[in-house]
């Protein structure tokens, strides 16, 4: 009887461990998805800057005011771009510097994504291993129960 209790406790522990791994995988998945959105946004920014530069100075544009309204504006010097460099600080960069800075951000995000993906693969391996252990444990537990009934 005591042996059975011990086995059940062990099984609960393994299940808890498994749930923890699954939660970690979910968190990593959300983080990777956030990185993907950010990378897509940064790439759009580069394209937008390029398009604005191609259109050139004095072009009439619509400036968004919130999500619902827009006002007329005129494009000024596109060779001066204000880029957020982090810690609430933005700096004026030339067009080329701005594109380089954004590309640098994309590269570091992709590096981070690679690391997260590797961590996720490792966790999947652990989940598989643990699932196997749980299955074996369940089989042993069932055998123990049938023996004790006899």
């Amino acid at each position, binding site marked *: 009887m005591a042996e059975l209790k011990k086995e059940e406790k062990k099984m609960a522990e393994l299940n808890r461990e498994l749930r923890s791994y699954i939660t970690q995988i979910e968190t990593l998945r959300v983080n990777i998805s956030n990185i993907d959105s950010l990378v897509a946004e940064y790439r759009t920014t580069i394209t937008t800057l390029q398009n604005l530069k191609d259109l050139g100075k004095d072009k009439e544009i619509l400036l968004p005011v919130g999500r619902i309204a827009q006002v007329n504006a005129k494009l000024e010097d596109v060779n001066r771009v204000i880029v957020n*460099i982090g*810690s609430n600080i933005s700096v*004026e960069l030339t067009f080329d510097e701005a594109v380089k800075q954004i590309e640098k951000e994309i590269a570091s995000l992709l590096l981070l994504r690679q690391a997260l993906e590797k961590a996720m693969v490792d966790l999947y391996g652990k989940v598989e291993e643990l699932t196997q252990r749980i299955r074996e444990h369940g089989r042993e537990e069932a055998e123990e129960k049938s023996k004790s009934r006899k």
Partner: protein
Amino acid sequence: MVEKKPKKSQNRESEMVKELLKNLPEGRKIYFRIGNIMVEVTKEEALKLLNKTKEVTK
């Protein structure tokens, strides 16, 4: 919801910003965001604000 960055990552970001500010050619405009407002600051002011933010997050 805005996710709070871990302290280690905040420090690294702040170091990178500091480096970028130091290498920024003279005459370039620098802005500091306070809520929805972007305030134009000098390089020295920006570095000071950066150190101040770092102290607050310590």
